[in-house]
């Protein structure tokens, strides 16, 4: 088992490198960071432009640039932005922002997604099942930015009705906020609710669909009947035997879902003014910045790697048929 997981880890690492190289190469080929410099009025002296080109290693072949960047990156130096800021200094802050946003959203999304899915399955073809199905499809077919804007609108109405700023929809904290720990916490929560909801709603919709069908498979199963025949109440059999088995196929979904969320969350970050990784990627592209683009891509790839690997671990933990291989 350990060997299996180790082998998978190596495979994932290789995939990470490939993904990052592709992003790097694509960015380096299409971006033109000195173009903006040249377009300035008055144009800067040729020497300045050449210096910038050299600094950004624009005249070296792309594979070589990638190897140099990667060599530094492995040591924790992801290079500098086109405006000569250190990426490595900015990176932890950005990661922190994204994780604060997505961890909560994901935990809520998975938790409620499972609960809604199970409830729908148990109450199949009842009103609540139809309602859950309807809302899932509505949410899944609504683009994220629209959902974010809708929530903003609802929050605005709510605030107006309450006559106070209950929910805030820009940034992580109120700039220049003064107050004790408790007030600071309340302030953060006020900022968190809307973006978390935006993220969680999509996930609830998505996971609940899968959980519902996984649970339905299990509901008609013989082993659930055996568990009841032993003397478990229906409820206990449902949770201990049914849900436990129905969670197995979900593990992979959860893990990968989280890995891909960071990029999927770009809109959410932009709408609510959170300067996280998704926002940074858009910024990097806007600025024709290869290093930022490559760094974010590497980060996402590593995240997918970790989730993929975690999903293997979960799967092995949850399903003895895999564990024993």
């Amino acid at each position: 088992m350990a060997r299996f997981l180790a082998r998978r880890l190596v495979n994932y690492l290789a995939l990470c490198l490939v993904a990052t190289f592709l992003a790097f190469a694509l960015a380096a080929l299409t971006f033109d960071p000195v173009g903006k410099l040249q377009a300035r009025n008055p144009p800067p002296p040729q020497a300045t432009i050449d210096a910038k080109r050299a600094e950004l290693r624009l005249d070296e072949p792309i594979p070589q640039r990638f190897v140099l960047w990667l060599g530094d990156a492995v040591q924790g130096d992801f290079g500098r932005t086109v405006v000569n800021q250190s990426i490595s200094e900015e990176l932890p802050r950005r990661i922190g922002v994204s994780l604060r946003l997505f961890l909560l959203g994901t935990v809520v999304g998975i938790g409620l997604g499972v609960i809604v899915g199970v409830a729908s399955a148990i109450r199949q073809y009842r009103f609540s099942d139809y309602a859950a199905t309807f809302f899932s499809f509505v949410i899944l077919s609504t683009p994220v930015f629209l959902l974010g804007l809708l929530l903003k609108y609802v929050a605005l109405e709510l605030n107006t009705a309450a006559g106070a700023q209950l929910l805030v929809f820009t940034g992580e904290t109120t700039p220049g906020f003064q107050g004790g720990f408790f007030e600071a916490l309340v302030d953060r929560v006020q900022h968190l609710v809307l973006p978390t909801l935006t993220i969680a709603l999509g996930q609830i919709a998505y996971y609940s669909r899968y959980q519902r069908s996984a649970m339905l498979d299990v509901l008609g199963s013989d082993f659930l009947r055996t568990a009841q025949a032993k003397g478990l109440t229906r409820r206990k059999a449902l949770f201990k035997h049914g849900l436990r088995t129905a969670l197995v196929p979900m593990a992979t979904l959860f893990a990968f879902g989280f890995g891909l969320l960071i990029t999927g969350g770009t809109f959410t970050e932009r709408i609510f003014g959170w300067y996280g990784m998704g926002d940074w990627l858009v910024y990097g592209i806007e600025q024709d910045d290869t290093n930022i683009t490559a760094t974010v891509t590497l980060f996402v790839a590593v995240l997918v790697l970790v989730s993929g690997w975690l999903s293997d671990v979960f799967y092995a933990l949850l399903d003895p048929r895999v564990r024993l291989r």
Partner: protein
Amino acid sequence: MTAYEAESDVLADPGRAGEPAAPLLEVADLEVSFPSEDGRVRAVRGLSYRVSPGEVLGIVGESGSGKSVSSLAVMGLLPPSARIGGSIRLRGQELLGLSDTELSRIRGRRVAMVFQDPLSALTPVYTVGDQIAEALLVHGGRSTTASTARNRAVELLDLVGIPNAAERVKAFPHEFSGGMRQRAVIAMAIANDPDLIIADEPTTALDVTVQAQVLEVLKTAQEVTGAGIVLITHDLGVVAGTADRVIVMYAGKAVETGTVDEIFATPRMPYTLGLLGSIPRLDVGRGQPLVPIEGQPPSLVALPPGCPFGPRCPLHEPACDAAEPELLPAPGAAPDHRAACIRTGELAAADAEGGELAAELFDAHVVEAEPVDSATRIDREVVLGVDRLVKHYPVRAGGIFRRQVGAVQAVDGVTFDVRAGETLGLVGESGCGKSTTIMEIMGLEPPTGGSIQVLGSQVEGLSRADRKRIRRDLQIVFQDPMASLDPRLPVRDLIAEPMEVQGFDKAHITRRVPELMKLVGLRSEQINRYPGEFSGGQRQRICIARALALEPKVLVLDEPVSALDVSIQAGVLNLLDELKARLGLAYLFVAHDLSVVRHIADRVAVMYLGKIVEIGGVEEVFAAPQHPYTQALLSAIPVPDPEVERRRERILLTGDLPSPANPPSGCRFRTRCQLFATLGADQQQRCIDVEPPRESALPAEPDAPVGAHLPDHDVACHWARIRTVV
């Protein structure tokens, strides 16, 4: 949800005085219905029965007759959509109307259940031990700790005959074979020493040798717990060997009940009579006329008034349609023998043995065929032959570079031939290589090893045109008719398809299709119907018609009747018999049911782990089997006759089929061989070291000359000796 209708107190019913005062289980006027698109399905319609402590009650009937639904009602495990009425009392306590929590205290502790499909009956993610321990823990109260429960689980596994229980208790369900899982489920069922065990087709999904083991375990379980048992099955042989009393169900009702001897010896209801007559018997063979019960069970939605068996009953008369006959004491029979038929008195008067009476009533007769003369066998043409056929499937391991680490020896040196006009039955437990053998034959490709000969040509040298020609003469019918018929095509197209492929002209096809339908006993008006509108037996007839469309010489039949109910099976078997006689076909008939083979085949080949262990004429092999495996296989098959069953001594094989990827050295059967255990050490050594060659069997008569051999009966055992087991 569940409608609970209060019922008059049946215990106080004076009409039933004299019976044991407190039956263990008393089901009275049980009604169960489900909603469906066409209306309410009345799955159980007024079923009443009682079970006394320590008694085994057998419930038999065709699929869909309400056996499972009625027992799930007792367990309180019907889906919420079911509407239930009547009364179910356990030692006087009414169970209907109890809440799930109240029922959960009864389930598993006082009433336990064993289900049909052991493969899916256990939760895949918990160990077998934990699941057994759970049964103890939910009912155990405070005195039961996790560790005492675990120890008890080991004892229970040991009791149900799982070797090395202390180790195996930690295994997950997928590491257990089907038979072992069923034992584990039985262990779970007896964990809390229940008063009543309901076993719903506990052995239907298992091989006969494993079935014999599991029935034995069930018997042990009953002895240990003293429980009453409700044994549901469609196999009358199983009932004959195990039950004390029998209920025959039809269309959701009991149509006959009585002691097992009464029911089998003097059935008083035409359905029971037909059912008994429809089973091919291991101890009778060819001469037995099989009773086909025409038609199919009625739809349980909007049942017309009158006897539900009416449309299929040979004794049907207008009076039968007036009202549904009640289950009344049968005239001239023991007092608790009841039948639901208005003409039961006439049946009693017709003083004949059950089997003959059934044949007479249902107008069944033995298909008259030229007896296949075994003396001239050598002179007849070989239509299908395999010689030392080998088929190994590679076993691979590793992620990207999947290297071969071994081979599943699915077929390992099989030799047999089928000659013109005869039927060879190929039998053996599942996994022994039967299907692989016929797939190799049907593929018409050169095999991995050995050779295949079809109608005089070796498949090695065949050109494409030859192959196409041979395909016409060699056709196959599969087990599951629904899977082999495209549901979107009408019968006409299904039957016409092979002829179109072979390029027959339209006029010929249009003429042939109705002919073929008539040949297999379908009405030509049904030509535009779709497979979904036919019953299982009719669908199998469509498959047969299709296989016959090109007028083949050889028909390969892969378990053609094992998916069918016995009453339907009889009709298909009769058809096959008749077709063979009329068209001069040769059959290669693959089956796991030896009774069926005995009925239909001229010769039989017994396979074990990819090899043929015994082959010969059915009469010789069944009457005087020489290989220990054949003996065990035959002995495991129950005979639908309680008297015979009581006399028979069962050879119980130990364990399961070993993996064909890693077969035992020497004789492949030695790990389970009952004869091996009785041999001396040096004799055993020979079994371990030397693979027994296939040799002519010795004659059965004790006074046969020394050195004489049977010409056409081979056996592969070093120490083969005759033992009568049927």
